[in-house]
């Protein structure tokens, strides 16, 4: 909650600072400015990591279950920063990084000797760095100050276990879409635009703290403030 509050404050300050300088000029399709820097908050949805049973081998080669586990990375809020550069009138390339501290939860149950169910927990420090593309979708109905876009990207995942005893690495892929709202938009000057971005993404993380080689999908939602130069 603290991070969310801090994020809201950052957005509010940027917006407030930008409002007096706002011009009535409508921005181009993707807004003015060639380089965009953004910072904001990110919400990662729950990421199921699968199930695993602790088995023992029977005399016939079968399996006797001793207990069962089900694992997930819990939903979490994090921070995200991005820098984008305009390549074409409606296409940007961007690099992004994020930081969050999700909990790795392993629910343990079905014990063969009746042990009470337990959820074992640890906090993971999660870093991502990656790149992607943003394509601005022409949509006059939204007006000149709100620009819809679709986005996609890939990147590297670094997940550090609690007490920093082990670093896990992985990859992520994401696709999604959202809107950018321009609060300030002016073709001249050092700062060309100030606004906010909201987007929803489908995120697939592979390896890292995952316990198999498959990709694991989860939703994410980002809200950030941006400045164009």
């Amino acid at each position, binding site marked *: 909650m603290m991070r969310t509050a801090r994020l809201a404050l950052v957005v509010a300050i940027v917006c407030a600072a930008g409002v007096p300088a706002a011009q009535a000029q409508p921005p181009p399709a993707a807004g003015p400015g060639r380089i965009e820097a953004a910072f904001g908050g990110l919400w990662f949805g729950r990421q199921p990591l699968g199930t*695993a*049973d*602790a*088995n*023992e*081998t*029977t*005399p*016939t*080669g079968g*399996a*006797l279950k*001793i*207990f069962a*586990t089900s*694992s997930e990375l819990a939903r979490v809020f994090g921070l995200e920063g991005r820098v984008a550069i305009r390549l074409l009138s409606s296409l940007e390339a961007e690099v992004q990084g994020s930081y969050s501290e999700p909990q*790795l939860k*392993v629910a*343990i149950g079905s*014990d*063969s*000797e*009746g*042990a009470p169910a*337990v*959820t*074992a*927990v*640890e906090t993971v420090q999660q870093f991502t760095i990656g790149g992607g593309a943003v394509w601005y979708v022409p949509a006059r109905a939204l007006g000149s100050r709100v620009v819809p876009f679709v986005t996609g990207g890939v990147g590297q995942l670094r997940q550090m*276990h*609690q*007490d920093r*005893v*082990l670093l896990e690495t992985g990859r992520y892929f994401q696709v999604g879409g959202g809107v950018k709202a321009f609060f300030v938009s002016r073709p001249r000057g050092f700062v060309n635009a100030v606004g906010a971005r909201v987007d929803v993404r489908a995120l697939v993380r592979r390896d890292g*703290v995952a*316990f*198999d080689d498959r990709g694991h999908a989860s939703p994410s939602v980002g809200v950030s403030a941006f400045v164009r130069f």
Partner: protein
Amino acid sequence: MTRAVASTLVVLLVAGQPQPALAYLKFGVTIGGRQVTLKWAQTPVRYSVSTQSAPQVTVADFQDTVARAFNTWQAVPSATITYQFAGLTAALPGRDDGLSVLGFQNRPDLDRVLAQTSFLIDRTTGALVESDIVFNTSFEWSVSPTGTANRFDLESVALHEIGHFSGLGHSALGETEMRDGGGRRVLAAEAVMFPIAFAPGSIADRTLKADDIAGITDLYPEADSTRTTGSISGRVTKDDQPVFGAHIVAFSVARGTSVGTFSLGAQGQFSVAALAPGVYILRTEPLDDADLDSFFDTSRNVDLDFRVTFADRVVVVPRGGDSGEISVKVARK
């Protein structure tokens, strides 16, 4: 020189002198007041095969079968121990002759013992001089690739005994139930070094499990393994008092494998070594699935009065390091 019967196997197994080290059960001797782990100082360890055959097993079949079992241990990539066949011999196992001999003997007096491993130890240095394995012809044996009904699988039992021959004690990764006529029946096991053999006809124990591999790696670590594997250490307490003899199982969520150890330290300490890095779940249970003397000197006060307990935190094994002390608090039944 002293000969110690270190282990026997089948429905009942008598442990020799398990060393109260922190990781796994290993055999050991006390030399000059200090504990020395029983292990081979030099490899390859040479072994001979007795020319004494059994009713259903020729000498050639016996030689081939034990060679496969030796090769299975030798193939563990994280361990350095190797073995070498030194030839056939008329010598019998159990004699103090400087030869490590594997062979059949008729031992009707050992009515629940399929096989037995003994050691000859130099009491001045603690060095392991020889080790012999006797397979009891009071039981019927099979060397069939697919097993034979009503006969014990020689390769499975040889694999267990060669674990002892190499210095490993027993693992408690198994479930049993009491039989009407006495003794125990194995429901399942996840270690070749579990003290009680599978029923006749089963060949399920021809493959080493994670627990066996961790044990042999702990005893004979390959140079890289200390950098590529890690450990979990901690202590088990009940009412703030140390618990001796609790069985702790580290379950790898990623691999689905289990490795066990015991709380053997004076303060209830335990250590699970030679683990692949990653996330583990710790389960602590009383040692109630086998006879205590299969594991410990029964004069030790093994605590069985506590409930099965899971650690409420995820335990992470680092690469080349230790998890940091894990405190496991158990409650009375």
